[in-house]
């Protein structure tokens, strides 16, 4: 058995992306330029997410955020493992950082200056906030269960396809999926309890 869920064989595109990032890390100038160009999608992703997250942030905040996320992604490019396409990996940074930024702005707007009330109201909920919450929990859950959940939902793969992809038995894959789903449920319930 050569594969494992923690290090699934990447698909063709992700494998190419991984090679690109590694060449960039090795100091290949052409790869560096190409990677920089690929990351130009980042401000567009943030803007697209922002439009779906409620009242739009000011352009200056979005520009600021895009730059912060760019720096974050660049600093962490050595952590890219080719589990998904580069854009999908970048998307997760955009999603989480956008929601962090919106939360901060929301707190700033709803609190008097200098007031650090920890019980400040949460920012408005919505599909983007929900997606960010799940993404953050999946990061906490970690592999292998989080990988299987992602492949099932984000990747749109059947259990059989995941088993083929990872070269793991179908039963193991289903076990990881079920464990992941149960864990998410309990963590979401805990968070719900804390908020209420």
């Amino acid at each position, binding site marked *: 058995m050569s594969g494992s869920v923690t290090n699934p064989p990447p698909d063709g595109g992700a494998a190419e992306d991984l090679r690109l990032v590694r060449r*960039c890390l090795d*100091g*290949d*100038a*052409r790869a*560096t*330029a190409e990677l*920089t160009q690929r990351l*130009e*999608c980042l*401000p*567009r*992703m*943030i*803007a*697209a*997410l922002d*439009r*779906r997250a409620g009242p*739009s942030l000011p*352009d200056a905040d*979005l*520009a*600021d955020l*895009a*730059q*912060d996320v*760019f*720096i974050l992604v*660049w600093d962490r490019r050595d952590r890219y493992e080719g589990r998904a396409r580069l*854009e*999908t990996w970048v*998307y997760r940074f955009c*999603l989480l950082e956008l929601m962090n930024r919106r939360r901060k702005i929301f707190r700033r707007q709803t609190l008097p200056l200098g007031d650090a009330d920890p019980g400040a109201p949460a920012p408005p909920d919505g*599909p*983007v906030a*929900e*997606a960010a919450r*799940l*993404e953050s929990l999946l990061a906490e859950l970690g592999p292998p269960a989080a990988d299987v*959940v992602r492949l*099932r*939902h*984000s990747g*749109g793969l059947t*259990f059989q396809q995941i088993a083929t992809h990872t070269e793991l038995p179908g*039963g193991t894959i*289903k*076990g990881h*999926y*079920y464990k992941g*789903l*149960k864990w*998410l*449920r309990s963590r*979401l*319930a805990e968070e719900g309890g804390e908020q209420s």
Partner: protein
Amino acid sequence: MNEHGPEHEELIERWFTETDAPSASEIERLMDACPMCREQITSMDEVRRSLTAAAELERDVLAEASQLEGRPADGGSSTRDPLRPASTWWRRPSRWVPIAAAALLAITVSVALRLGGAPNPTPPVVPNGIMLGGEVTLTAPIGDVASFDAFSWTAQGSGATFQIEVFDADDLTTPLLTSPVISGRTWTPDATTTLPPSIRWTLTRFDIDGERDGTVSVDARRTNAP
């Protein structure tokens, strides 16, 4: 079947993993008989729906972002294009300079490795200028050149001014040459023969109020060094 236990758990697991999946009516009966199962199935189904919704959002956003690649920045309209609000997202020199520096360091290392290694028939690969949000492009000298006689760039808009600094590529601490602040798109230094064979030159742009609003640099190597 009223007591919540391993049997119920197994049935629920088979339902969610589609393994010899019980029928919907079996699950309905289980939910009617066991409140704990009802709660568990309902909440897990909710998680599953949320995951599916998050995946749809991801697909939508990625598709939208990729569809817009190559679209003209002005979009042919005077109103704000909500998907391109960050045309000036690079504008914060102190923040993005380390990234550009990292990228350029990689370029420099690559060039240095090639220069120090065995003779290589292909020239060092240097990107064709580093662009600032598409608004400023360094045009020459870049990569392997015959001389450093003139420094040139292109820039959109008017009212901006520029300053050039030229460094030894191996020592970026102090500029060897510094231009005055100019409004043109070319600078011809008085003497460039004293420059080392490999340089890095940096262009700083100032806005109409004289505020520094961006810096960009690139490496060049003189092939016929005196």
